[in-house]
């Protein structure tokens, strides 16, 4: 009694699985047609990837906040604060790897944990808590840096973190891919990773199934903070100095990448790998519009339109619409 699947149903099945990839390919095709010379080159693709690495790092962290049907608005501020603190530590004479470990990795994770702890303590929506901590950490960044860029960093730091791994691939790309790969493993293969999807989908049912909601919330926001700290590290390395206003508005790029990556805003659904593609899409648009010679103002327009478009398409063709 099986009925033939219609073309629309097949498209729907295809879309729900590969939407993000399809968008990326479409965008690549558009820019390749518009600017075949400058856009279509191996070097340019590497550049896109490198430019996207910070967005990707922020986005794969942000993913976990949104997976819990929450949000982390503080990632841009965390990126700036960790960058400035690590730079200050280097200037104070700490060896740069230790400065990075303390200032970026540990501080980032600690700030994320603080977000999670506050959310657990107050039971307020993550939106409210991280809106507050976004301002707090941005302010602290200005306090620590005296509102001036922190420069005079050890050259080896820039050469290693901002350079190329084995003289081949840009280090930011390696870091972003490595972090993403670890998080893919974490979400697919570990119990806490799986549990986060349960908590995001139905916290009450997850609780009765034996999952501790608070410790998993803490974990998700710690990952988000840690990833933002790593983004801060990469950013300072690429610029050669720590800017106190770095990452302003980047939380929006991160959230955009997560959404374009098909993550459900209602929690419980999404894939890290798609978020990485989402980050690449944003990088590609910025780079492509540059190549075509479109002003930076229109780049924001294009990105905003893409977010609306991606979510709309998901609404109509995504897996959820079938229910």
């Amino acid at each position, binding site marked *: 009694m*099986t*009925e033939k699947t219609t073309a629309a149903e097949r498209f729907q099945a295809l879309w729900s699985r590969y939407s993000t990839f399809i968008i990326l390919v479409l965008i690549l095709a558009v820019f390749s047609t518009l600017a075949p010379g400058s856009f279509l080159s191996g070097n340019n693709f590497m550049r896109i990837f490198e430019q996207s690495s910070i967005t990707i790092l922020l986005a794969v962290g942000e993913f976990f906040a949104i997976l819990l049907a929450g949000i982390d608005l503080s990632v841009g501020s965390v990126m700036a604060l960790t960058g400035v603190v690590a730079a200050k530590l280097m200037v104070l004479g700490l060896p740069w790897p230790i400065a990075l470990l303390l200032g970026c990795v540990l501080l980032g994770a600690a700030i994320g944990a603080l977000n999670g702890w506050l959310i657990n303590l107050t039971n307020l929506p993550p939106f409210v808590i991280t809106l507050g901590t976004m301002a707090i950490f941005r302010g602290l960044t200005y306090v620590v840096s005296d509102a001036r860029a922190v420069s005079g960093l050890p050259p080896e730091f820039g050469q290693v973190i901002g350079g190329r791994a084995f003289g081949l691939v840009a280090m930011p790309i390696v870091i972003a891919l490595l972090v993403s790969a670890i998080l893919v493993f974490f979400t697919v293969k570990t*119990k*806490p990773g*799986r549990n986060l999807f349960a908590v995001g989908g139905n916290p009450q*049912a997850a*609780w009765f*199934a034996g999952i501790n909601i608070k410790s998993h919330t803490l974990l998700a926001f710690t990952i988000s903070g840690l990833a933002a700290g790593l983004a801060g590290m990469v950013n300072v390395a690429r610029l050669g100095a720590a800017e106190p206003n770095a990452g302003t508005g980047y939380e929006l790029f991160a959230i955009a990448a997560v959404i374009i990556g098909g993550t459900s805003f209602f929690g419980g659904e999404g894939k890290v790998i798609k978020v990485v593609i989402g980050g690449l899409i944003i990088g590609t648009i910025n780079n492509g519009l540059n190549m075509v010679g479109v002003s930076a103002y229109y780049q924001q327009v294009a990105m905003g339109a893409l977010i609306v478009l991606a979510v709309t398409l998901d609404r109509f063709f995504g897996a959820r619409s079938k229910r």
Partner: protein
Amino acid sequence: MQPIVEMRDITKRFPGVVALNRINFQVFPGEVHALLGENGAGKSTLMKILSGAYEPTSGHIVIDGTNHDRLTTRESSQAGISIIYQELSVIEQLPIMESIFVGNLRTRSLLGIPVVDRDAMYKRTQELLAKVGLKRSPDTLVRDLSISEKQLVEIARAIAFSARVIVMDEPTSSLTDEEVRQLFAIIEQLKAEGRAVVYISHKLKEITAICDRVTVLKDGEAVGTRDVANVSVDDLVAMMVGRELQAKYNEKRKGHVPSTTPILEVEGMTRRDGYIKNASFTLLEGEILGFSGLVGSGRSELMEAVYGAAPRKSGVVRLHGEPVKIRRPYDAIKAGICMLTEDRRYSGILANFSIRRNLAIGEQMKSSFLGGLGGLIDFRAELAIAQDQAVAMQVKMRDIEQSIAELSGGNQQKVLLGRQLATNAKVIMFDEPTKGIDIGTKAEFYAIMRRLAESGVGVIVVSSEMPELLAVCDRIIVFADGAQRAEFSIEEATEEKLVRAATHHVSEGEEL
């Protein structure tokens, strides 16, 4: 007499299944027509076609002699068809008055501008509430009402828009006996006014009590339509499931002697929120212990406290004589205590997970460490556990990778039970395990409970259905106001005794 609605030869196909096959269904003015069938028999699909939500693949719907190939939702409501779903659709944040008139606000003219006519709506709402016997002001917020009161608001709303056919989907699933009596009185009144009621329920006693005719569906086919006066409960069961199962359902639990070793001892349990004060009980190995009482008497609240799902102030839980520290469900699962919650959708299924993941998560939590934050997923073991349990529970599904949300209620419940069984629990607490579940699946659940008990597992059943407790338990504790009121061995327990024990305290003074 001409029927208000006649559905002729209705067939509905979905990709891969025939949900309804040439169904005929008539509703006459002034009758209460029961629609009966197991989960997935096609009742909801038929009603969705009636409400205009679905288009039939073939067939006709005749309303007042006019033929339709399908109804739009607008045509359906204009014809006076009103459906009250199990999940009530009144808007919680609004006062009763507005939730009745939402979408159809009455207006009056003020300087030629139509403005909302509060006074007229207030008066009309008062009339409607008086009619359905709801003693509340029209200004009361819907969220402050009990479930039965919300149901009355929905009925009032149906009457307000001159409904001629009111479909009630499992209207009594969350009501106390007294509230059920009230509802029946209102149904009688609707009948007297010439309106028709389509009554969907699994509770056969209610059908024989209130309905005039009954149509039984099975696997999308109409088994038949009968006058209720001429059928017995046994006939209905036979029509629904066939003879073999009927015997199973009525089978009493006899001759089973649980051991005298306690498996679970609860002492002085007090919840921080005060719902439970100083409750104690002992469960023996291989025993099925029932908890009876009114809705809200504290039975579920006690189980939640034992399970660690609600914070407790004091209380000791001993398993095999050893005190166990349970601060959250994780600790309980680790210790071997599982709970099947009352509200599948809210606190049971993980709707965004596949059947496989839903089945495996219990064992995965049990074998995890660091409070559930540690451990890798073994995909092969996961699939094996899920397949074993799906087979053992006889889950009707297309594919184990299918979303659990696509299953019927009874099958979802089987998956949830399979999740607990996969943990090799020593104690399983069932909270209203067969709520909204068809008779066939109920019988399977009872059989599983008995098997568990015979294998030495301690089983606790919280249920508002007394026949269920009497059929399955060795011992029954009656709860009221967060404390134990009485205890009966199965030999001495009767429905009457249970009711009396549950309501004794309110009979002096307060009204029930």
